């Protein structure tokens, strides 16, 4: 079977690629486009490490074929910062030390950005449910949730104190 030719927009840039029919979007991002920020954890939609935003909805890129990306708009972890300026979620992950090994972090940051794009003032419970599809085996989640809620406050124009060093 011939490779599929796909034209899409990734992180605001038009991108064209060729892929095999069975290649997932995650395979294409990592192996064809060298966008290796999205991680493969479980490859079955359970861990969220491969989370990307597809036309406004967050999805697992491991559960989508590359060929399905034709004409769609995709945001990956590489498109979250604006140039050298970190997104508030990224900044707060650093300040709160909301990561240890870091493997789950790109997925969490993309998912948290998607949350805050939709809900500027999530409760802790809302944030925990929204992020339930992202697994972290290091942090115990608490620092992640603090970072996300603090990032939400920053994005609302408030000025939460940075956590004590």
């Amino acid at each position, binding site marked *: *079977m011939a490779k*599929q030719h796909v034209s899409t927009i990734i992180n605001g840039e038009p991108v064209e690629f060729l892929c*095999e*029919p*069975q290649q*997932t979007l995650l395979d294409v991002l990592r192996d064809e486009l060298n966008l290796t920020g999205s991680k493969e954890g479980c*490859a*079955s*939609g*359970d861990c*969220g490490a491969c*989370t990307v935003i*597809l036309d406004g*909805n*967050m*999805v*697992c890129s*491991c*559960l*989508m*074929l590359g*060929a*399905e990306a*034709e004409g769609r708009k995709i945001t990956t972890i590489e498109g979250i910062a604006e140039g050298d300026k970190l997104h508030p979620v990224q900044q707060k992950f650093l300040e709160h030390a909301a990561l240890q090994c870091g493997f789950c972090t790109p997925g969490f940051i993309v*998912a948290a950005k*998607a949350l805050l794009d939709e809900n500027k003032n999530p409760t802790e419970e809302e944030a925990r*449910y*929204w992020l*339930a*599809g*992202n697994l972290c085996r290091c942090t115990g989640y608490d620092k992640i949730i603090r970072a996300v809620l603090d990032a939400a406050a920053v994005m609302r124009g408030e000025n939460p104190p940075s956590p004590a060093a």
Partner: protein
Amino acid sequence: MPNLSFTAPTTVDEAIRALAGAQGLAKPLAGGTDLLVQMRSGRTRPEVIVDIKRIPDLIGVREAGDSFVIGAATPGVMLSEHEAFSRAWPGIVEGVDLIGSQQIQGRASLVGNLCNASPAADSVPAMIAAHAVAVIAGPGGKREAAVEAIVTGPGQTSLKKGEFIIEFRVPKPKPRQSDAYLRFIPRTEMDIAVVGCGVNVTLDGSGLCTDARVVLGAVAPTQVIVTEAAEALKGHRLDDDTLSRLDAAAQRACKPINDKRGTIEYRTKVAGVLARRATKIAFERAAGRVAGVH
């Protein structure tokens, strides 16, 4: 999968030709949240994947006369965000909302949840309870089938080669009619139903139940319509005696598996409890005492 091919037709007829014309297994693709997992594990080895999302009207919810029409590839998030549908059938939306994570909700469809044919599918009991109908397109033209006629056993459906569901039609509720869905899992999120129960009730002006449908999931090879439980409700208010007969009828309808997530005895008991609780919520909603979901 060395010989896999992918096609994304823009008409129903092209999709039928692609599905019917394949030598080997041909699979329609909506959200892919079951199909891709099964392909990776080797449980499914399709020769052709037919992405149905480029066909007009297969994504979205619309109102047509006395029904809501849900396109086959409509993702869960889109249904939950549809205000009129959420008000009309909060129980269906509750079931859909329980499927997987927010990431899965961004892709997974109700039709896929049905056609994956898991006994534990969370959206199915409330869809059956609401008398939802599947519109099926195939080489022989279009036909309609009640949702409960689609799944014939775990992983098995009554769809013939070349057929696929293009949409669901869900009748709009009558005055004082509403529904609810509850499931039991041993944790708070990201799990598969040990028992699920969808209930649809209609009340008269005095609060007596005039019509009901009670459907259990995850307690038999397919979803179970518990006629005896519905009969226990009809003509009654939700008094203790009615609830006891409902509970007993739900328990009698169970033929569950025995596994580490729930023994036969446990699943059976929980089916009765969920039937009681979901019925109470459906009654309250039907009586107008509780606003819609969310």
